């Protein structure tokens, strides 16, 4: 998706994330990585591969198996001036650390009137589509987005994975960095050195169309782009907006894209009910009310616990369900 640049190479999103971590650790000795299996093993997804070898076991730290302990320890490190990057092994294993996240990480700057900043990056492989057993495919972005004090970002491209991770580590606020695990092995041409670090908080229009606008993020971005291609056959020319940042929200880009078409569909993997898509739909409905020719629809996971591998394809929003929603955008009017 990025245009070829000097010294570009084809890499996977996993490699881009690894490159980002390595670069940040080389440039700033205050950056350190901690989590379960991040050291010797390089993480179960190999995102931290080679970091312990290059930076030592104390800067790429295999911790005991306790997520509250990991995040709580990171808080103390950050209080002392380090910039910890925490790896949570899977989405559902953030939950044991929820109190640390909500009651400390999110609130520390506020409760100390700005005296303590917590530049912590919390990397969370999230989402489904990889045939994981239960507790390995959750999309928990809504919990984080509803917690003031956290930034929440999620890349959909190899380049953004690198850039947003560098931006997250550079941020003086805690960032929940959601990595769409089924895009780990997606590939793209990409030159880490040439690629500017995108500021956190900016959405990007991945495709401009005139008929309707798909609003999405993370693992659903490629699905929406595919749907937009398929929609051509129906005579629909779809815009696709990749939010990238759930907090802060890029109202400007999103509203402009919706007003331009007057129709919008929100797409994400998480269960729809009180999901992040509700916020998108509510905002857009409020802010673009008089531009809307049809209600904003949502295509999301069902309101069920994440299903077992053999059924997950029915749960995940796919091209067909997206096109079906587009078809329901009251074209007859």
């Amino acid at each position, binding site marked *: 998706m990025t245009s070829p640049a000097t010294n570009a190479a084809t890499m996977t999103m996993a490699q881009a994330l690894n490159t980002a971590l390595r670069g940040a650790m080389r440039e700033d000795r205050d950056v350190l990585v901690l989590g379960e299996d991040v050291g010797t093993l390089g993480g179960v997804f190999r995102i931290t591969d080679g970091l312990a070898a290059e930076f030592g076991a104390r800067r790429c730290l295999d911790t005991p198996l306790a997520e509250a302990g990991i995040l709580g320890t990171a808080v103390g490190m950050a209080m002392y001036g380090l910039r910890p990057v925490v790896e949570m092994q899977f989405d559902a294993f953030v939950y044991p650390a929820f109190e640390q996240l909500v009651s400390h990480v999110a609130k520390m700057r506020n409760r100390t009137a700005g005296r303590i900043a917590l530049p912590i990056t919390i990397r969370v492989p999230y989402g489904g589509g990889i045939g994981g*057993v239960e507790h390995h495919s959750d999309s928990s972005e809504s919990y984080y987005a509803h917690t003031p004090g956290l930034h929440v970002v999620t890349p959909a491209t190899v380049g953004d994975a690198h850039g947003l991770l560098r931006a997250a580590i550079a941020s003086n606020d805690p960032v929940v960095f959601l990595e769409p695990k089924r895009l780990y092995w997606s590939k793209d041409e990409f030159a880490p050195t040439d690629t500017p670090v995108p500021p956190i908080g900016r959405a990007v229009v991945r495709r401009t169309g005139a008929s309707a606008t798909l609003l999405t993020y993370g693992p659903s971005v490629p699905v929406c782009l595919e749907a937009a291609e398929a929609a051509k056959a*129906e005579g629909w020319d779809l815009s696709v907006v990749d939010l990238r940042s759930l907090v802060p929200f890029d109202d400007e880009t999103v509203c402009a894209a919706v007003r331009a078409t007057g129709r919008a569909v929100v797409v994400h993997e998480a269960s729809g009910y009180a999901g992040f898509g509700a916020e998108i739909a509510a905002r857009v409905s409020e802010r673009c009310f008089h531009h809307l020719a049809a209600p904003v629809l949502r295509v999301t996971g069902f309101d069920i616990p994440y299903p077992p591998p053999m059924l997950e394809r029915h749960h995940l929003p796919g091209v*067909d369900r997206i096109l*079906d929603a587009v078809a329901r955008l009251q074209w007859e009017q």
Partner: protein
Amino acid sequence: MTLLDDSSTPVLVWTPGAHGPRRDPAPLLPDPEPFRMLGTEAAAELDADLLRGLYRRLVLGRRYNQQATTLTKQGRLAVYPASTGQEACEIAAATALRETDWLFPSYRDTLAAVSRGVRPVEALTLLRGDAHSGYDPYEHRVAPLSTPLATQAPHAVGLAYAAQLRGDDLVAMALVGDGGTSEGDFHEALNFAAVLNAPVVFLVQNNGYAISVPLAKQSAAPTLAHKAVGYGISGRLVDGNDAAAMHIVLSESVEHARSGCGPVLVEAVTYRLDAHTNADDATRYRSPEEVAAWQAHDPLTVLERHLREHGLLDDTGVAEAAEAAEELAAEMRAEFHTDPLPDPLSLFTHVYAEPTSQLREQAAELRAWLTADAAGAPTAVPKRRR
């Protein structure tokens, strides 16, 4: 009898004059060396049938692990965390419990479930991927496999407490890994069990690793069994590759709990001979020499050697056990031969006792899509509902 008996005497607070320990820590501490039977003189006294039974179960267990691993290679199982090398622990967890007792396994413990009577295909459903839990927990009193580590430990406490409240004779056993002992839930469960005097046995299978993380990075305790004293309960240390020792220590612990003497923490020292799962590359974090050293202490080898040395097993016995194991393997292959076809609409059936109106709407949507799909919707936008 228990600390929280309604009729209990006024609660004890340390008074200025009586500050010493509220209980003597000495009896709570584990033996300095893991308890062993096989290879010791005491082993000669062991019941021959018990040992032969354990042997047959071990052989079955090993074959079970092999077959399940093979099924992953054939794509019949999505993933399998083998308990190869830990079979003595898995099996003793079953032999030490009565039918009326409950087992709370962790994700690696399908063999323990199978040893309690759960059918392999049902125990492995989670790992095949057609459903989250394939067996009825009430049938053999085996809680669903717990993937979030140590989170099932408090469930064991609550269930044991509930049984006690109703006056039912029941012990709950929770299985946790060495890594799992670091989780807050492990701590809270032990503390609750101790304070409530709930009949629970916590079995920690210390197999040296939590995926790639060795015990030395997990805990600095003298032994994991030493954690018991911090809760005021008994700690036991046992050789997890000695099936006889495992059976004895767990049986004693279960009876200790059953008789109202309080929960027990058992650490079984063992080793995971296979990788974490079939998807793991164990050579990244441990040496072939280390694995070889433990292979020499394989629970099956250790027991077989003992039985042969004491004239309790001959080639016929070995062949018989192997045959039973082959039957199990064949049954597993047969069960896994066909692909399950879970019903997509089952997604909505067990979220609540009754589906909410929201779920009914969503089920109707999915039904419509499935129907359109089956009917073969127009090609431009295939499968789309019109």
